[in-house]
């Protein structure tokens, strides 16, 4: 799909590796950048009037923040971190899933990596679930239904919150 074509070369390489037999139980350190939010509640979205959404489109603690177009989880900006950093005492997941979000401020599309922050109980603040271009579990690196804190040795630990790091301008 078009938006997939816009992903970075690194992401595409990772995708190829993931789907190969050789990749099975392979080294994960080389896989991706991105990130994802854990689960999911299709709840914390909507309800705001259009004016309110516009007001919050550049607020990292709002579900309507432009980078959050495909996030699923608690916003790290509400949990002691920020849109691109984890709260104290947590670890950022090495692997993630990526979305492509439109920034209405500069008119550009960006590849956004939703790295989870891991190692403490769920933050419980600012739950947000938006599903633009989200795919089912069988397309993992485009699915926000995974907990990306599990997996590698470093981050095989509980989910705390989700960031939304800019990786690149989508081409």
């Amino acid at each position: 799909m078009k938006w997939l074509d816009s992903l970075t070369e690194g992401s595409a390489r990772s995708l190829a590796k993931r789907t190969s037999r050789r990749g099975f139980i392979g080294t994960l350190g080389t896989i991706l950048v991105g990130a994802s939010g854990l689960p999911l509640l299709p709840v914390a979205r909507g309800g705001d009037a259009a004016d309110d959404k516009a007001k919050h489109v550049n607020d990292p603690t709002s579900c309507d923040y432009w980078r959050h177009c495909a996030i699923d989880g608690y916003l790290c900006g509400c949990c002691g971190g920020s849109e691109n950093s984890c709260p104290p005492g947590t670890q950022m997941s090495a692997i993630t899933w990526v979305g492509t979000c439109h920034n209405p401020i500069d008119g550009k599309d960006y590849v956004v990596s939703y790295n989870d922050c891991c190692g403490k109980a769920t933050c419980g603040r600012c739950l947000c679930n938006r599903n633009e271009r989200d795919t089912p579990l069988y397309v993992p690196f485009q699915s926000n239904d995974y907990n990306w804190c599990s997996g590698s040795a470093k981050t095989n630990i509980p989910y705390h919150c989700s960031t939304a790091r800019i990786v690149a301008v989508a081409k």
Partner: protein
Amino acid sequence: MKSPRRVLSAWVLSAAVACAPLALALLAPAAVQAALPPDPAGTIQTLPRPPSAHWVWVNDFAFSHMVNGKAMLVDGDSGRFLGELDTGFGSMRVVLAPDGQVIYSPETYFSRGTRGERTDVVTLYDPSHLSPLGEIVIPPKRSSNMPMMSNAQLTDDGRFLLIYNFTPAQSITVVDTRSRKFVGEVETSGCALSFPTGARSFFSLCADGALLHTVLDDTGHASRSDRTEPLFDVDHDPLTEKGVRVGDTWYFVSFSGVLYPFKLEQGSPKLQQTWPLLSAAEKAQNWRPGGLQQLAVHAGLNRLYAIMHQGPLETHKDPGHEVWVYDLARKARIQKIAMKNNSGSIQVTRDSHPLLFSVFIDSTVLDVYDATTGNLIRSVTDIGTTPTVLVTP
């Protein structure tokens, strides 16, 4: 003119006369009945076997406190909360043995609560006492994701338990329920979850729209693995992974509401004729299926139940306020059920007078409907914190 005091006295007298029989009736039993006996100490309830067909397990992965997920058992006929299982971190769902003798629960624990060594197990529970019978240690790879029924499935004869792993390498852990031992892992690179197709086989959904069909031998190891050609369009209209099964056919619905039946033929899953759950007019009005457990079936009636809502494409996980019912033989909608509350997960009991259960992850209410009339029977409140998928005996 009578004085106020005399009026009051007269009223009191007449009231006393009128109430005398009632007062005597209230006092008399106390005079003749023995005092209540002391209650015995240490009484603990047990549950009958086999379970009622109208019981439902409400799985809760406790999103705001994920280390202690649970599964709660509710009787749909009475609305009574019967008991619960504590199912650890990132709880997916309980799996009921076909013979009703044991409940399997894939679970994850950390040695220091949210820290320390991770241990994954399948805990075996006694269905009468809801207490652990034992556990089987499995590799600490169990996928942590929004709970799906196909995170854990039994083969048709109940012999092997299949558990989806994601590290993000993808595989299926196989557990022998007879020996109660971990057997091994089956590689499913590029493919997710398990959908049983027989006593020794299952398929997984793949990122390119293909199905990976795996056949096990009698020891639980993969003896054959075949990958179909892509059978659905992941890029333009992906299937949700929330499939349901009637007999040898699995049904999946696409984001836009097209039903895809996959039937096991000559040892492998074959795509049957697809058909739309929505008319052109309904699609134009942005109706679409949604929810976490958005489909349910009743095999005896050969009916499909689908949660529907109105919204754009990216609302494919949103709950709905309607459940549409289809006759699978006629490929036609036969009923619309108006839901009292948001519905994100539905399940239908297997008996001949089926109930339709409904929950939503952002609510703690379990709604119980007559699955044939669509009438609301009752709402059961305070069921967990984030109820996910529903499992019936």
